[in-house]
Structure formats: structure tokens, C-alpha cells
């Protein structure tokens, strides 16, 4: 094996663990080698904890700073970054949270993490025009049932068996008082980026089912059925109006004319 490769493998093992295996290759003129090696380990590990803290501020507030730091360090050891682009780091944290036993007491935490990750993805997603109300107004009414609506690249929908929108909202850093919430109420949230800002708002469960149907390629009539099954009094007009203001869609496709 090449000498350089051996050094790089030992350095790799050193910075992601607490074992100074690199020590046998390095020289320092004074002081303990471990003190110097710790500078590299600290840059890597603290740097990644900070990246995760920025991406998951509400998870961090819910579990507390100390627990978050421990959680993050375990996650980093299990899932170090694969890509030299740290805005993509943390995608696996929601699934990882589901495997951490003490966190089973916070069954909503996985969905909160998914919501926070969705916000990050939305921020960095491709640009492109959003579908405007005028575009939809031009669609001949008789073709509406067969209409296909494509989501904008920056749009994400998260549904949960827990009140995730309200849990997320009350735990944002600017909110000091956290009220008691009924944790059994199911909620959904949509994340979109109509301009330069990522917006997050609560939507009804029927609305979420409609949007998720669009994602899998369903036409409006099918998506509407999915919404009405969950929510018999679902108001499709009002929901579509909010989506057009909020930048949910990128484009529409009309059925071929017969």
C-alpha cells in the first residue's frame, strides 16, 4: 500500500473516532500530539454538529442542546458526509432519529425533522416560474377533471399523525412560550418558495392527499377524490387558490384535445 494512502486512511479513522491512530505518522515540536490531532477532529466534528444545528433548529430546541450534540455526533459517526457540499448533509437524520430508542418518547420528532429537511431542500431547489392564477383561469372548464398539475421543484408536503405544523411553529426560536398541544391530532404542512423565501404553512389532510396525488401523476379528478375520501367537505377551489398564491405548482398539462 502507498504511504500516502496509509496516512489518509489513518487520518480518516482518527477524525471520526476518539482514537489517535494517526499519531504514529506525525511529529510536533512541543506539547502532546493528541492536542494537535484534536484540532483536526474538532474542526470536522464540531463543524458538522453546527451544520446539523442550522438545518434542524426545532429538533434541537425540542431535545435540548446537549442531547442534540450527542445525537449529532453519533449520527456523524454512522453517516459521515458523502459529498463536499454541506447543504446536502443531514438528509438521513430523520430516519436515524427513528432508530434512537430514547427518542421513541417523542413520536412526532421524526416528522418534525422531515419538515425541517424539506425546508432546507426547498431553499436550495431549482428556480423556475411558478404557475399563476391566470394560467389556471385559461383552462377550459370541461377539461378541468383531466388536468395535470406539476409541483414546483421547491415544493414539499409532509403529513403526520401528530400536530407537526403547530409543534414546529411554537418551537421556532422566536417563540418563547410553548403551549400544551393535543399530540394525537394529525396535521399536514406544505413548504414552498414562491419568491426568495421559503414559506411553510399548514394545509388540511385532504389538501395534502390531493397534492401527494399530483406528485404521483394523478389528474385533478383523481386527486380530488383522494382529498374527499379523507375530508368530505374539502373545498377544492379555496385550496387551489391558496396554492396558486403560495407557489406550489410549476406548470399544468392539459389533456390532448379530442
Amino acid at each position: 500500500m502507498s504511504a500516502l494512502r496509509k496516512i489518509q486512511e489513518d487520518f480518516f479513522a482518527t477524525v471520526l473516532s476518539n482514537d489517535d491512530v494517526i499519531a504514529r505518522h506525525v511529529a510536533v515540536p512541543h506539547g502532546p500530539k493528541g492536542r494537535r490531532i484534536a484540532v483536526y477532529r474538532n474542526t470536522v466534528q464540531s463543524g458538522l454538529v453546527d451544520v446539523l444545528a442550522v438545518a434542524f433548529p426545532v429538533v434541537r430546541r425540542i431535545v435540548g442542546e446537549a442531547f442534540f450534540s450527542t445525537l449529532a455526533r453519533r449520527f456523524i459517526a454512522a453517516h459521515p458526509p458523502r459529498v463536499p457540499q454541506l447543504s446536502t448533509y443531514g438528509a438521513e437524520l430523520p430516519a436515524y432519529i427513528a432508530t434512537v430508542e430514547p427518542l421513541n418518547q417523542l413520536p412526532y420528532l421524526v416528522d418534525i425533522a422531515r419538515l425541517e429537511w424539506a425546508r432546507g431542500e426547498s431553499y436550495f431547489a431549482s428556480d423556475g416560474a411558478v404557475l399563476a392564477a391566470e394560467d389556471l383561469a385559461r383552462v377550459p372548464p370541461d377539461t378541468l377533471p383531466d388536468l395535470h398539475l406539476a409541483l414546483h421543484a421547491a415544493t414539499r408536503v409532509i403529513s403526520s399523525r401528530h400536530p407537526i405544523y403547530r409543534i414546529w411553529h411554537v418551537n421556532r426560536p422566536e417563540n418563547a412560550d410553548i403551549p400544551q398541544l393535543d399530540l394525537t391530532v394529525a396535521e399536514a404542512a406544505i413548504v414552498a418558495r414562491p419568491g426568495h423565501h421559503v414559506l411553510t404553512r399548514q394545509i388540511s389532510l385532504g389538501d395534502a392527499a390531493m397534492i401527494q396525488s399530483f406528485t404521483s401523476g394523478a389528474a385533478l379528478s383523481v386527486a380530488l377524490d383522494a382529498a374527499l375520501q379523507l375530508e368530505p367537505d374539502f373545498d377544492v377551489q379555496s385550496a387551489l387558490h391558496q396554492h396558486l398564491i403560495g407557489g406550489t405548482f410549476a406548470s399544468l398539462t392539459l389533456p390532448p384535445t379530442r
Partner: protein
Amino acid sequence: MPDVADALSSAPPAVAWWEVHSENFLSPGGPRLAMLDDISPHYPISCHGVGLSLGSHAGLDAQHLARLKSLFDRVRPALVSEHLSWSVIAGTYLNDLLPLPYTDEALDVVARNVDRAQQFLGRQILVENPSAYVTFATSTMPEWEFLARLCARTGCGLLLDVNNVYVSAENNGGDSADYLDHVDGALVGEIHLAGHTIEDEGESRVLVDTHSKLVADPVWDLYRRTVQRIGPRPTLIEWDLDLPPLTTLMGEAARANAILTHARGQNVRAA
């Protein structure tokens, strides 16, 4: 950095050029990239990378190189730079600038990677000297010699970080002034200055390149001495953590400018 963002949104600031970390702008879209699109037609941009991992024994990551090229095609930077370090191994990215042994074997690896990057990007890159907290027992040449040989073999240039020269010398027992005197000025395309933090004292004393303080006086002295010898170069004050008010940053930039102006006058007289 509310101060900087405010200054940007109010009026076009009187700065000569901008430097960004390439890796912060590799997303497909979003407001951050839009901000760069707004300024890039009006100012020279320097794209300073931290993730290409020029020292990786297994070669460069083709996908990362391709992402960088798309960014450069979009922004058309005046300068592109990377570090004499490594950070990628076996498909894992370690978010630091990890040190290399200065050996013939490592020189072959880095030269091969720099060649590939320059060919793929169709342009010269500048390579920056890193701050070091350890050295390798197997090294056979000083860092300045390794860099000089790398430039000779590949045609790359140097991004000379004066603070890193000082931090490495203090930590590893070297002579900063002697290092800088050995650098061929013709190779230097840009200079970095930054503040460091002194952690611990006595036996365990270590200088950490934190980019969170004012540039230290010995580093200013080394900078003055260097630009007096090689002439003025585009100079950046790096400040990434514990950001001060914008006026403090402008004060540091003014101090560098005064030294550059003085060196320019001296160089004209010499010519």
C-alpha cells in the same frame, strides 16, 4: 451576517472584487445563487474551493469537478483557487483541510490531480498553503519547495496565505520570514490574511486558524515584507466566525490597502 447583507441590498458597495466559497453555491437554484448571479456581472469574482481534495491518493471526484465547472461557467470567475490538502477518502467527505506529507509520492498525486482539474476546467487554478497543526515524519522537503515544484510541473499558481504560513511555523517550529523569502513572487496570484486564535499556553500552545479575529501584528509585518518584495497582489481578509461590525472589516481592508499602495509606489520607483 446581517450587516453585510444590508450593505449589499442598499447600494452597490465600493469593493474591488468578491470571493466566495465555491461549495456554498453548488445547489441547483435558490436565493443564495441568485445573489451571486446579481453581483457577478458587475464585479470580478474569486471562487475559492474547500472540497476538491487535491491531495486525495485515489484521484478527484468527477462529479464534484463537474459541479464546479457548471458554477464557473455560470459565474465566470476571475480567479479559481483550492488548497494543498485533502478531504475526500473512500467516498466520504471530511470537512477540513487535512495535511499532506511533503514527499515525492504526494507530489506525484497532487500534480496529477491539479493537471486533471486544470484540463477539465480549462483554466489555471491557484493552490493555497494550508494551516498545519502537525507535520509528517516522512516529509522530505519544506512546504514552499513542494509548492514550487507543483507549480513548475502543472503551471498552477499560488494563493499565498500569510496567516497560514505564520500559524504553521509557530505550531511546527519553522521560520515564517524564511518561508516567504523562498516564494517566487511571479507565481503568486492572490494573498489571504486572517486572524488566528492562540489556544493554551506553555508546552501545549497551539495557534488555530479560526478566521475569527483581527489579523495579528506579526502577520501584518510578514505581509508588508512580502508585498514590498513581490509587489502588490489582490488581498482578501478572511473572517468567517464571530463576525465583527462591517466597519471593523473595512478597517482591516483599509490597512491592507495602505500596505499595497505603499508597495505599489516602491515598485514603480524600482522599475
